[in-house]
Structure formats: C-alpha cells, structure tokens
C-alpha cells in the first residue's frame, strides 16, 4: 500500500464519478471513453493490490488484516460490474450506476488506507 498511489486512485475515481455525474445530469448513457477511464482506475487498483501483497510479504502488512484484504478484493469487482451494466442499460441510469461505482471505489481505497494503518 503506497500513499501516493492511493491518492492517485482516489483522484481518478472522483474524476470518473464527476464525468458520470455530468452524463447522468445530461440524460446520457455511459460511453466507451468512460469505460476506458474505468479501466485506468481498475489498473491502478490492481497495481495497488500487487504493491500491498509485496509489502505485506516483506513487512508487517495491514493493521486490520481481514478488513483490508476484504476491501482490496471487493474493490476490484465494482467497476467491471458497472461496466457490464453500461452495455445492458442504455439510459442515463447506467451513468448513475457508474457514478455510484466510482464513489464506492474511492471510498474503499480510503478505507484501505485506514485499515493499512496510514491515515
């Protein structure tokens, strides 16, 4: 778990959430570029997970073990599910789902920081 990377994840997720919110307000469905954005966030989450695994193999690892790994794994599932729904739901509501998903990912990353013992 690296603090700067966590900050990057949270910022990217919040930007994605803002983008999705804009689309929801404009009554538009999720577009492919937003899914590329979600892929970038997902990649950052994966890097963070790999870093966390490497760090806990060498050092003390997270303070709250169970909770941290729970968040680490669960946060990876959120965006792919929202992305899949973007194909099924071609209305503004897919944008609201992406908004919810991105906010959830940002919140989970913040909780991962807490349970790792950084903030």
């Amino acid at each position, binding site marked *: 778990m690296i603090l700067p990377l966590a900050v990057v994840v949270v910022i990217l997720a919040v930007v994605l959430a803002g983008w999705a919110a804009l689309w929801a307000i404009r*009554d*538009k469905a999720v577009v*492919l570029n937003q899914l590329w954005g979600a892929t970038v966030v997902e990649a950052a989450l994966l890097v963070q997970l790999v870093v966390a695994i490497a760090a806990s193999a060498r050092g003390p690892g997270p303070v709250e073990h169970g909770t941290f790994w729970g968040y680490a794994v669960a946060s990876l599932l*959120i965006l792919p*599910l929202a992305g899949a729904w*973007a*194909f099924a739901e*071609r*209305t*503004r509501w897919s944008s609201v789902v992406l908004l919810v998903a991105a906010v959830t990912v940002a919140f989970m990353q913040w909780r991962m920081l807490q349970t790792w013992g950084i903030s």
Partner: protein
Amino acid sequence: MTEPIGTHGSRDSAPAPADGPAAGASVPTGHGVPSTSSGPGRVLVAVYGVFALAATARAGFQIATKLSEAPLAYLLSALSAVVYVAATFALARGGRLARRVAWTACSVELVGVLAVGTLSVLSPQDFPQATVWSVFGQGYGYVPLVLPVLGLLWLRRTRPVPEQVTSP
C-alpha cells in the same frame, strides 16, 4: 433506448430518444409484472449490492472473530446482511414472488434502521460496537436510512397494473 455503446467517444453519445419510455418508467417483463431491475432500479440494485457485500463481509468477520464482545450488535449486523442480500436478489430478479420478498426486505430494513438508530441514540451503552444501522446509518452517509424508502417507493412505482395484464 437500446442504442449500443458508442465506439467513437463522448461526442457521439446518443441523446435519449423522445419516443422511448420516460427514464424511470417501468419496463414490462412480458408477464404483466414490470421489471424492478432496469432504469433507476438498476441503481437501486447496485447500491443494495454494495451494501449486501459490505454488510455480509462485516457481519461474517465480526461473528467469526469477536461475537462474545457485543452479541446483540453483531447479530443485528448479520440480520442486516441477510436483509440486504435478500433485497438485492429480489429487486434484481423481479416478478411476483420476488416483489413480495423485496417488499418484506425493504420494510424490515426500514423498521430495523429506525429501531436500531433510535436505540443507539437513546442508549449508546447497549450498542458499543457500530452496526450498519447505528445512529440511522451515520457511518455510511445515512444511505441505510434512505435506501429502504427508495426501495419501497420504487416497488410502488413499478407495481403491476391489473388492466395491463388482461388487455390483449
């Protein structure tokens, strides 16, 4: 409303067609029972899914590791987890039986969040460990308080209309 996802980017996103059903309108499933999982319902299912996941993980962890510390709070956590999982699947599935399950789950959830919320404010010593419903779901941005209300409103809005069932 069935515009496929664009390959060109944001500029090409199609505006909602004027002839489609209004966003938020229920979509028939073919059996006279409106779908509860499309349109705004999809957002409900998504948020319920997140809470089902969170509550299940939290309750499982609490009960497995420290049930004796606060049995009441942790068993309430488990109850909330069951309710969220039931609501998620029932809303996602739709249909008559699922609607009844969803009604029950949302009602139990509303009663639960109001009861636990009130008790945790009046006698905090009985709720030393936080649950999803403590202080009306304060720890989760009061979403647990709003969610059952939205769920019940959505079920009301998508309730089957008898005339539609009998019409040819």
